[in-house]
């Protein structure tokens, strides 16, 4: 990181040479000083532990092993190999997390976009309706998970509603049936974050060049043609952005799993974060978890780059 700072300052000198900051000439170090406090915090709390974790992931260290972490026994990539090829439970958690990401994001974006389109036109009470719909995203996630826990209990209102719908008593064991337990977890994510997608996409829709839409209408486009040929291509960058941001967030899913099922029953709802929590804080397999953390980071980075690349290429072309 030190190297980065040094590189940054030379870059700044170049920046001045290019005249990006004229008044800077008189205060060469000023620009660097500005980011020092933030940098100290990030270095000590994020970058240092990350580097430490990189070291640990190459060792077999646990707190119970009796040696200091920096003296741990080095074992190359053994942890990674074990994770990828030997650990069924880890792989299951990884796949489960990916499933939650795909289903959750798809649902959030499609519902969010539909809702945003509904709110594209003006109608009475629109502001109040928006305020109501975005309420879930403001709830403390732990409280949201608890609320869903209450809803999905055997004797909770969800079962009662299902009963009213099907017409005879049912008792789905939502939280203790290993096939069903994933449903409330997904639902609480969708419930809490669809409003964000809705708000993002609505903001995007409102920012669309109004005259392009009007032009399409004046040229005779039907409602569907307007959506398909004009709105969708224009809103695509916002959709991709939503996709990236939500995917990254859901990848980290922890609070609802911890509150609703703690990964259970068995390991049927165990996600990556839950897996890491159990292995790290319950079984103290620190080195092993560190390796898993790096794998996950790589997966997330690859995912983000994969999605963002076509987007940035397109915006570059438009400049």
């Amino acid at each position, binding site marked *: 990181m030190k190297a980065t700072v040094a590189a940054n300052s030379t870059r700044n000198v170049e920046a*001045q040479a290019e005249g990006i900051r004229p008044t800077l000439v008189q205060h060469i170090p000023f620009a660097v000083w500005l980011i020092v406090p933030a940098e100290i915090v990030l270095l000590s709390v994020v970058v240092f532990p990350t580097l430490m974790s990189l070291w640990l992931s190459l060792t077999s260290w646990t707190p119970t092993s009796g040696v200091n972490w920096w003296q741990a026994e080095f074992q190359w990539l053994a942890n990674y190999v074990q994770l990828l090829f030997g650990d069924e439970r880890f792989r299951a958690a990884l796949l489960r997390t990916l499933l939650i990401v795909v289903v959750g994001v798809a649902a959030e974006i499609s519902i969010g976009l539909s809702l945003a389109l509904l709110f594209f036109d003006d109608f009475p009470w629109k502001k109040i309706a928006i305020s109501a719909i975005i309420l879930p995203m403001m709830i403390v996630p732990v409280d949201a998970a608890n609320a869903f826990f209450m809803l999905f209990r055997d004797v909770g209102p969800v079962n009662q509603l299902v009963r009213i719908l099907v017409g005879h008593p049912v008792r789905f064991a939502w939280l203790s049936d290993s096939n069903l337990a994933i449903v409330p977890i997904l639902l609480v994510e969708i419930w809490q974050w669809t409003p964000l997608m809705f708000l993002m996409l609505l903001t995007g829709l409102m920012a669309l060049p109004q005259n392009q839409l009007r032009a399409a209408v004046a040229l005779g486009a039907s409602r569907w043609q307007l959506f398909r040929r004009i709105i969708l291509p224009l809103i695509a960058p916002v959709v991709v952005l939503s996709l990236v941001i939500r995917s990254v967030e859901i990848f980290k899913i922890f609070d609802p799993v911890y509150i609703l099922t703690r990964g259970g029953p068995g390991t049927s709802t165990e996600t990556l974060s839950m897996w890491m929590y159990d292995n790290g804080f319950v079984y103290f397999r620190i080195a092993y978890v560190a390796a898993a953390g790096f794998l996950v980071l790589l997966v997330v980075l690859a995912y983000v780059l994969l999605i963002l690349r076509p987007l940035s290429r397109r915006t570059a072309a438009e400049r």
Partner: protein
Amino acid sequence: MSSTGTLRVEGLTKRFGRTVAIADVSFQVGDGELFTVVGPTNAGKTTTLRTIAGLETPDGGTVFINDRPMNAVHSSRRKVSLMFQNLALFPHLSGFENIAFPLRNARMRREEIQRRVEEIADLLRIGHLLDRLPRTYSGGEQQRVALARALAPTSEVLLLDEPLSNLDAHIRTSLRAELKRLHREFGRTIVYVTHDQVEAMSLSDRIAVLREGRMQQIGTPEEIYERPANRFVATFIGSPPINFVPAAVVEDAGGVWLTNAWLKLRAPAHLAPALRQHPRDSVLVAVRPEDITVTPLATGDRVGDLTVYAVEPLGAKTIVDVKTPDGNIKAIVRRSWEGRPNMPVTVGVDERRIHVLREGDEEFLPSGPDRAAPVQTTSAG
């Protein structure tokens, strides 16, 4: 009130990455002069101004104010005022505080500031704006307050960046005259940047024409208009722009002629010597629209090559667009000109007022000193 100074810019060069914003720009502005830098977008006008103000560091060249080099002086101590194109009024400060801002920083006494701001506000008739925030102003009012802020401090050079842009036509016309009157009364040294050649012509003591970062010509408005240095200046100054008509140089016993299929001009005395050196060359004849007369052909006349393409009445005058075999030319004719599109016409050119350049050249052929001034007349409607 008047603290003025001279400005000298020598070989100013500024690059942004690989693009060259200005290249080797030099000029001198005398004490109390109103000097305009005019040019199209990306000419480097704003960069020039910002470099003088110290907001950009030049890659080469020096800025002198009162003969002192300024390159190492921070912009807060250069004693220049800059009126930004987007005005950059402080949105959170009242009109009074905006105008007083430079004075407070100069540690002027409180009563003195009060007096000074009120004096300037009177002058620009913005007394009623002093207690209000800029967001409540109209476009013209914002412009005036920004101008007042630039006028308030005792700066040696006043830099104005497109101060009249974004205004309605009528307000612009009247503010323009007002600015000129203000300058006459207070004699401040002003560098005025604009893309509008009309503004440059009407306001300036001298004009510098800039294109793609390079200086094209420096001179009084009359010089620039009557004796443009090159093709670009001739085209850029004047509206509708000057016409270029291809012709060949022919010399016979009668003298030197410029001819093409539809036009035969006797080369005027001030151009003849230069043209004689280029016999049979292809040249372009540059004619201002007001130096062209257009006459409809009477019925029965042989139909010529020239027809009216469009007639554009402007009220006091009319622009006629004439279609020629070599492209269209525009002429300014009197208001009640009777002609309609597709009508055959003949065209006359005041040959004493033409410029000539060789095809492919940018610079005009040199002309002698006896170029005719426009005919003196009284003005009548």
